[in-house]
């Protein structure tokens, strides 16, 4: 027990990869064995994440002093280069770890019907989870980069091999963007390492001694672009719709639910703490991009005929709120932005799962190809309405709180921009309702008169997310309270730069 408590983060991070080796050892034809063991392997980190959550101290925070970081594990790794195995969580990474631990088992369940190359699929999936968890908890810059790459490689294969008809195009697009992003981030990491004295990859040290870095504007932009590709921020977003359309359901869920947050997480963790002065200077720039994302994403979503593409563009729109919120440097905006990361993860996961459910049955995703199916599949319809209403920010559901906080925060700094952003809510309502109407309402399309309602497995993936959507909308404290001290710390860092 003592061991578990003191190594929570490494256990959460490495159990999936260790488990993946077991999966490799299983015979190829025992598909069910592989599935069940993958499920068990992903449930263990979820349980450990709940232990982590319970033990997380909500009152302290801070980044450049280690006191605010909890569950620290630090070992010397490569002494010559001063690389450490350094992990820890604070209010920024805690919600992300929770989200990741939650989404992964759900995705395993959603992958139950993968028949082709089962072993390879689950092996790569588990490897992916390690990469994502590691990237969220790593506090050594080099370790962070390794996890960052470990996370991208399986993603590439999962889209490229198990994807839809145009998977090659989607995979190479993903590949190019990813590559560019990784290269520039790596260069900045090395530059920071060399500029620090003594040379270090320790993020907390780098943040503390960031005054040593030169070429700050170039570094800021390099990092920002590297992370912006992941968010994705306009105009680096076009890989996303393609990747989503081609990716299998569970991988879309991971992509939108967790991977996109890696981008905003990186901006907050690295741009904010290591180049706070540049961040303060570029605040308006970020806010403008955030607003463009909101409006541009929503308008593009409205035009889509493919349901999955529509949800993909809606992700771009919703991630815009995160950018706008964190660019406001107010408590409301920053908390709202980070909370929006979590909420969007839950809501978009639900949406992609719902798309997968209907695709499995109808073998197409044309919005206009359905019609009037609500009475045929009442349970499915209920969940779909819930998810879409959460996406359009209905008060009482979780996204409303985060979006309202973002607007309340951003309006204090950018009145016109925020007013423009608020029109996004109208467009979002329009495309969400229009979509629901075309699929579920109206005259029944007789082709789908015998459409089966959701199965038990699908219900198990969707209902927990639905419960979270409602619960956090009424009582947001369980997640919102995690981040507050860290947010104040980050915020002070930037505000003091402005003075």
């Amino acid at each position, binding site marked *: 027990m003592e061991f578990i408590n003191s190594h929570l983060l490494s256990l959460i991070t490495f159990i999936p990869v260790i488990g993946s080796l077991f999966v490799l050892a299983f015979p190829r034809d025992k598909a069910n064995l592989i599935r069940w063991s993958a499920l068990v392997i992903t449930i263990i980190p979820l349980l450990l994440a709940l232990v982590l959550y319970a033990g997380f101290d909500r009152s302290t925070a801070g980044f450049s002093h280690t006191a605010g970081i909890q569950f620290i594990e630090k070992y010397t790794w490569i002494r010559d280069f001063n690389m450490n195995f350094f992990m820890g969580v604070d209010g920024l990474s805690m919600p992300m770890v929770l989200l990741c631990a939650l989404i992964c088992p759900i995705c395993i369940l959603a992958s139950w019907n993968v028949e082709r190359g089962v072993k390879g699929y689950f092996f790569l999936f588990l490897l992916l989870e390690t990469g994502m968890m590691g990237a969220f908890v790593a506090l050594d810059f080099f370790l962070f980069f390794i996890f960052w790459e470990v996370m991208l490689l399986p993603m590439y294969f999962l889209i490229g091999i198990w994807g839809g008809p145009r998977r090659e195009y989607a995979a190479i697009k993903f590949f*190019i963007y990813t590559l560019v992003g990784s290269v520039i981030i790596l260069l900045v990491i090395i530059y920071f390492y060399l500029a620090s004295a003594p040379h270090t990859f320790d993020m907390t040290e780098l943040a503390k001694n960031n005054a040593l870095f030169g070429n700050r504007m170039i570094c800021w932009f390099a990092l920002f672009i590297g992370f912006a590709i992941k968010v994705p921020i306009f*105009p680096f977003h076009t890989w996303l719709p393609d990747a989503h359309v081609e990716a299998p359901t569970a991988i879309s869920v991971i992509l939108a639910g967790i991977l996109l947050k890696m981008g905003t997480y990186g901006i907050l963790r690295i741009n904010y703490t290591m180049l706070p002065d540049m961040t303060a200077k570029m605040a308006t720039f970020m806010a403008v991009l955030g607003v463009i994302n909101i409006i541009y994403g929503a308008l593009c979503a409205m035009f889509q005929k493919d349901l999955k593409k529509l949800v993909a563009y809606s992700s771009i729109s919703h991630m815009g709120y995160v950018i706008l919120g964190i660019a406001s440097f107010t408590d409301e905006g920053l908390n709202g932005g980070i909370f929006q990361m979590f909420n969007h993860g839950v809501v978009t996961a639900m949406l992609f799962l719902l798309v997968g459910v209907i695709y499995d049955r109808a073998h197409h995703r044309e919005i206009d190809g359905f019609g009037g199916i609500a009475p045929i599949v009442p349970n499915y319809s209920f969940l779909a309405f819930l998810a879409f209403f959460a996406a359009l920010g209905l008060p009482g559901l979780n996204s409303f709180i985060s979006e309202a906080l973002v607007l309340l925060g951003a309006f204090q700094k950018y009145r016109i921009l925020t007013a423009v952003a608020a029109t996004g809510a*109208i467009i979002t309502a329009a495309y969400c309702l229009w979509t629901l*109407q075309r699929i579920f309402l109206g005259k029944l399309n007789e082709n789908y008169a015998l459409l089966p309602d959701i199965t038990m497995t699908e219900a198990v993936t969707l209902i927990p997310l639905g419960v979270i959507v409602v619960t956090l909308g009424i*009582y947001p404290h369980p997640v919102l309270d995690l981040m*507050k001290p860290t947010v104040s710390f980050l915020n002070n860092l930037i505000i003091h730069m402005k003075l």
Partner: protein
Amino acid sequence: MSMKTFIEQYGFMILLSPLLGSAITGLAGRRIQKKYGARPIGLIACGSVLVSFIIALAAFAAVAGAREGEKTIICIVFNWLSVGDLRADVSFLFDPLSSVMILIVTGIGFLIHAYSTEYMKGDSGYYRYFSYLNLFIFSMLLLVLGENLLLMFIGWEGVGLCSYLLISFWFSEKANAIAGNKAFIVNRVGDFGFILGILALYSLLKDKIFGGGLVVPVAPSLLSFRFLAENVHLINNIDIFGVSAATVICLCLFVGATGKSAQIPLYVWLPDAMAGPTPVSALIHAATMVTAGIYMIGRLNFLFSMSGTSLNVIATIGAATALFAATVGCVQNDIKKVLAYSTVSQLGYMFLGMGVTAYSSGIFHLVTHAFFKACLFLCAGSIILGMHHEQDIRWMGGLKRYMPKTFLTFMIATLAISGVPPFSGFFSKDEILWQAWKTGHQGLWLVGFMTTGMTSFYMTRLVMVTFYGENRLHLRPSTDDRHDHDDHHRDGVKESPSSVTMPLVILAFFSGVAGFIGVPAALGGGNHFEHFLMPVFGHHAVAHHDPMEYVLMFASVAASLGGIGAGVFLYRIRPELPDIIVSKIKMVHRIVYNKYFVDEIYAFLFVSGTMLMTRVFASFDRYVIDLFVDLTAHVLRFKSYISGAIDRVIVDGLVNGVAESFLFSGSQLRKIQTGRIQAYVMVLLFLVVLGVSLVVILKGEV
């Protein structure tokens, strides 16, 4: 336990009860309905609202019984949000204003629930209907009782959701689903204004209160109504873009009100909302939800009173809407459409009242209107039941004979809305008109005066065409399927059962007498209603008797009687005349009949405009941004062919061998072009090598 402590501690039960009802009927209703039939669902739904009504009575008693100056009861449930300087509790405010509102909401709500058990009988979505209806009662109570603006906004959007769900209740008809969308989206446009108002109010107040570096141990709830009432004067001297902040905020909030309360320019959704079941039209689209905008202004009267400009805008829009909608109402043939435009028009009166700072008169009209308009709609529902789902008044006629109870109650409500003394509408409408005149808005008074005549005219027309003359159901052209199906019912027009007529009688009774709670001093009354609301709206200057008040009163009674006379003459005595008049002014009639083509103009400007924009943006995305990406991809692919030779030597052994033996059958791996995977791994290796060598070479030199 005194009544007051009961409300302080358990007041939230009033919301919890319909919420639970909604959850039960929504989540388990389908199973219950299949197993035990519709009855238990109706019982649960009605019971939950009855509980709310009883608590509302208790709350009213507690407020009324409290001493002067203590007429505000707060029920705090839990802390909802607490971020930075933002604090918002889930807490409920019971005061004279909200206690009147919750009586209306739960009282009329209960009657309409009871009525619906009959009206919706046999509908397969029975459980769904009651779940939505209960959810509506919950949301409306949240809107009314919420102690801060954010909570009010949740209720505000919540009622919008229920409205959407109920308008498109019979969704297999595409038009109904589209009407639901329209209602929600138009309301979202209004909510955009509402949100901006909240944002501006919050940021300015926050700046004023915390801007000076003031540190307070517990952040005050900036958006709570009690806090606002005391501190809103702080924003008095601030300008936004050269306009006073109060004006900007009030106008933004008013945009929200025009959406929810169907005023120009956002009224367009309400007539379409008649696609929903008729009891829904009565409850949501006449008696309660659409009055939310008026309630909001009443709740924030201290803020609106700070901006004379915004009050003038509100009064003008209100009067203009009242007249505009009345003209359209005069020529419609669908009984529900006439009532819908009538609602828009009456809401205009209420805004006129609010705009001339006669807040309690506006709320008074809200109350009387709730009774008589709910009554009218429920009568219409009864007629529609009796007529086997026919709504076109051209095929009605002579119903007086078949449906005596419906006729009688409809008459009472008609007299009330027409402003014939001593029915309720007379007192409330006259109060508004008098206040408009007294505060120097003679022009607006004239508009209101004209509307009075028009109102009684179109209502009389409705009565004459529907209840008098011969039944014309057999003249109806049966074109579409639904009508053919109903053919065998044609002779069976009959009065509705008592669960339908009982609510009618109760509502008609109140339509008749509710005016006596606010008899003005000029007629020897004490105006108890205004007095009761004084803790909220403050004291008006003591009214001294003004002979003008009697003159105006006489004028408006004359106008309403004139309207009735004209209606009787045109549609009873000389029924051939309307057609002749119409043929004389064909053009005008066409424009008014088509509602001034506002829907078509909006469709062209906003709907087509948005669709065009989405097309432009999506094309830009596809063809401009992606072009660049694709080009890069081609270059890269070409490169990977060149380096193919090297790749095969190194990477085949390194990756493919391992991967193939462990992971996949070889063919699968080859399906995704090996060249690209190799390229990827190559680049990764290259990156690591580059990184490490840079570190080694440059270490110590920077």
